[in-house]
């Protein structure tokens, strides 16, 4: 304090002193009556209004003297080389502190509102955040303001510190001013990181998992720290309540204390703008500074509000990922923008020891260096200290920028053409370069991320329709056929079956399929394709009985006979039209089981197809039903009854979820593929492997894969 005092108000001939005065002026209480753009360097109003404090701090006495001499003393203006920049940096720079406090106040206000809705437990956290975003009036606004104000506060605080470096506040003012601002930055960062986890979504969950594991590597105390944060060994309720306590109570309390500490140590004019409760006369220049402060706060508010509005209202984002799923593999976690540089930085340190150096030792050393800046900078000569500090700060800003840019750059999705070229190279069995391998990895990162995002949107869409069940938001996805169906199919069915050539999730299993492809199962196209060629690989072609003989040959025989019986082109055409009709009927049967059960064997007259009627019309469907009862019912039972003696699977409700559920659970059931008195169906039963719920989920998903759009018969036959 002593060094900083005694310069500002007096004329000095020594260039160095003048330099100090010029640089220190913006942040110091220097009485100036200057007609030029010097208002920021004028005295702080609080200074004169708090004589009590001055009394207790003798070191300020000469400033009081200066105050008394106001008007008589003319301060040397900043050196020409600082000139206008210094004054702009000085005046507007001072508003950064006020803006920080404003943004913090904004977060306290919005945070209190959020606290009235948010519910910290693993089953309710996601749900309550979803509720805030989707259902609460102005909920999206409150939450997104809270969200983006935290980002803005980090930026403003960083700028505030940079401003301190530029005007050498660390050297000229009380060390605690600098230290508390630096600490405030780390508290704000912690607030952001803890807040990031509270929605208990995938992004927050996996990001926190990584951070806690880094924390656990702290030598000696890592385990205890981890236990204290996690509240046990596994992430769960207690972790959420702890992080919540940190986020809403402990960290804000520390932040408030730090803000208060700054004010008591040195009353910067910057806070005048928002505290605004100073009694007494306010000089016009202070009023101008207050206006600046207020303008900057307003600009920050407008920017935060604008981003919040754009992201939530225009783009429709919920700022919410899929509910946290501890069992999920492959969530491609990336840190938030403000820690992206650290993520990139850690890539250069491999091995446990090196990682400790990269994650803890070097950042710790840098933090210590910056924290002690007010002390060591005072030992060094002024110029040297300033130079070192500027270079260090510039280097860090540059480093953070470059590392973040590299991190972003390395995640840029490679072009499809590039990927195709790499695949060509792979199929030619040429070795790939590191760059090409990276491109493949990046592509799969994007695929995973897209999948994760779709899951998030799906969970929100489901919640929007049905709300969240009491067992928690994970149940939304666990009971969703579109989500669980493909997963269950891949895990259970894809060893034999395929779905449009893949395993349901887009991967092709190594082992070849040995059963039908179930995409569009029991839909019109599927049935029609089966009637065209039952032994195609898509249907029964790959299936073998236990003795290795092809299965389902009777169906082929029947189709061949029917085709052979059609003597001429006209009868063939009529038969094909009947095939179209029966396919349309069976699709209808799979969607509305037994709707046409009243059309029995008696109504056998199958009228000729009318080429004018679309194949999905009700007359065609009814024609299909008649054809079924006349022809197919000979082997395939309907409601347990048939006209012939050969036994083929039951067709009442064929392809419906109920039908498939029994088929999956018990393929050898009398009404399924044990129809001809065989011992067992080829397919294994899943009754004891999958829960009823899972069986119905996969059945529902397969059922939903029937194409919705009507198609003409030519398309089906091709």
């Amino acid at each position, binding site marked *: 304090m002593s060094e900083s005092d005694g310069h500002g108000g007096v004329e000095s001939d020594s260039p160095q002193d003048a330099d100090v005065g010029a640089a220190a002026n913006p942040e110091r209480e220097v009485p100036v009556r200057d007609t030029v753009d010097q208002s920021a360097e004028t005295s702080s109003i609080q200074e004169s209004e708090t004589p009590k404090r001055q009394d207790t701090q003798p070191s300020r006495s000469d400033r009081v003297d200066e105050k008394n001499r106001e008007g008589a003393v003319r301060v040397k203006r900043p050196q020409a080389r600082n000139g206008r920049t210094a004054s702009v940096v000085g005046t507007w720079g001072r508003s950064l502190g006020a803006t920080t406090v404003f943004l913090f106040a904004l977060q306290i206000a919005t945070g209190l509102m959020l606290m009235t809705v948010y519910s910290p437990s693993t089953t309710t956290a996601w749900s309550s955040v979803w509720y805030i975003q989707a259902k609460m009036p102005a909920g999206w606004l409150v939450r997104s303001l809270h969200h983006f104000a935290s980002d803005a506060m980090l930026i403003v605080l960083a700028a505030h510190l940079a401003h301190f470096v530029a005007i050498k506040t660390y050297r000229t003012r009380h060390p605690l001013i600098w230290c508390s601002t630096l600490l405030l930055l780390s508290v704000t960062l912690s607030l952001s990181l803890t807040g990031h986890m509270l929605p208990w979504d995938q992004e927050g969950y996996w990001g926190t998992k990584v951070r806690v594991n880094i924390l656990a590597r702290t030598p000696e105390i890592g385990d205890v720290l981890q236990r204290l944060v996690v509240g046990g060994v596994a992430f769960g309720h207690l972790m959420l309540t702890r992080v919540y306590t940190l986020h809403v109570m402990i960290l804000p309390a520390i932040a408030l204390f730090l803000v208060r500490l700054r004010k008591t140590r040195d009353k910067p004019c910057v806070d005048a703008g928002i505290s605004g409760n100073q009694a007494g006369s306010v000089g016009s220049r202070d009023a101008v500074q207050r206006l600046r402060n207020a303008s900057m706060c307003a600009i920050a508010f407008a920017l935060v509000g604008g981003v919040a509005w754009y992201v939530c209202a225009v783009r429709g984002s919920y700022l919410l990922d899929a509910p946290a799923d501890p069992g999920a593999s492959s969530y491609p976690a990336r840190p938030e923008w403000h820690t992206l540089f650290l993520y990139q930085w850690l890539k250069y340190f491999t091995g*446990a020891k090196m990682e400790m150096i990269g994650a803890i030792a070097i950042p710790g050393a840098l933090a210590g260096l910056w924290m002690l800046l007010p002390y060591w900078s005072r030992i060094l000569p002024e110029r040297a200290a300033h130079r070192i500090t500027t270079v260090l700060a510039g280097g860090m800003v540059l480093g953070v920028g470059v590392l973040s840019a590299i991190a972003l750059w390395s995640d840029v999705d490679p072009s499809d053409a590039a990927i195709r070229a790499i695949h060509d190279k792979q199929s030619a069995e040429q070795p790939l370069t590191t760059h090409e391998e990276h491109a493949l990895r990046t592509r799969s990162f994007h695929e995973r991320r897209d999948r994760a995002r779709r899951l998030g949107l799906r969970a929100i869409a489901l919640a929007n329709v049905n709300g969240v069940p009491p067992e928690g938001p994970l149940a939304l996805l666990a009971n969703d056929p579109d989500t669980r169906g493909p997963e269950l199919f891949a895990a259970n069915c894809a060893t034999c079956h395929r779905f449009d050539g893949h395993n349901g999730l887009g991967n092709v299993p190594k082992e070849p399929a040995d059963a039908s492809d179930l995409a569009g199962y029991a839909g019109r196209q599927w049935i029609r394709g089966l009637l065209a060629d039952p032994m195609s690989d898509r249907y029964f072609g790959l299936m073998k009985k236990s003795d290795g003989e092809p299965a389902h040959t009777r169906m082929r025989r029947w189709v061949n006979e029917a085709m052979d019986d059609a003597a001429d082109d006209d009868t063939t055409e009529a038969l094909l039209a009947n095939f179209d009709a029966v396919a349309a009927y069976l699709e209808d049967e799979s969607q509305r089981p037994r709707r046409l059960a009243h059309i029995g064997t008696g109504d056998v007259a199958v009228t000729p197809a009318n080429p004018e009627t679309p194949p999905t019309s009700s007359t065609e469907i009814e024609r299909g039903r008649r054809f079924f009862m006349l022809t197919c019912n000979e082997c395939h039972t309907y409601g347990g009854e048939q006209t012939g003696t050969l036994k083929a699977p039951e067709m009442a409700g064929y392809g419906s979820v109920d039908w498939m559920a029994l088929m999956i659970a018990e393929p050898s059931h009398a009404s399924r593929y044990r129809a001809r008195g065989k011992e067992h169906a080829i397919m294994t039963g899943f009754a004891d492997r999958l829960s009823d719920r899972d069986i119905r989920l996969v059945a529902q998903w397969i059922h939903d894969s029937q194409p919705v759009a009507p198609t003409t018969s030519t398309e089906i036959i091709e």
Partner: protein
Amino acid sequence: MRFAVQRRVFIRSLVRLIQAGMAAAVLIPGFKFLRGATVRQPEPDGDNPTSDGPAPPPSSPYIRVAALSSLSLGQPTRVVVIADRWDAFTHYPSNPIGSVWLIRTEHRAAPSEIEQASHTNITIEEASTEVRCLQTICPHLGCGIDLAVASNSTGVADTDRNGFNCPCHVSDFDGAGRRVSGPSPRDMDQLSCRITAADESGERWVEIQYVEFRTGAPDKRPIA
């Protein structure tokens, strides 16, 4: 006089002692409180483990995770481990506690195994079947390890090329879970795993002991 001074010192110390006692009375249980309740371990199911893999911690039971027939040869399959779970005050009777990769392999049966097979009721094919079980938790920083899938131009992925890969910090592992490159300090964690004898429907089941290990260290230490 002297007595008075001693008395004052004594009283002051007594006050300190009382204060310290009260502080300790809050802080000691406070710290214990904050360390949190230990997670209740499920009871062992009493089965006799008979399989390969590292010796399991005595408390973790074998959990049935998949039917052997649902695993394709050489194709890693991720299964979710469903078990009894406590999360502080909530008891989930059957809940996902994590997931594992299962890789079914077959090796040429050694004569001793054929010999052994002839004594028991299992076929040689059964004796030569092995399942390897790998944790999905990356030993580096705990992200979920996925198959290293390189999708091709048709949008259909080809899984047999690259083994495993962690999407967070790009650790690569080969098809057997051995570390290839990247920051992971050790191979993927292998879990002890066994295949049951065929049940009445002829199905054999894969059972594993689910354990999570500390991340970030070259040695594999279970999380207590």
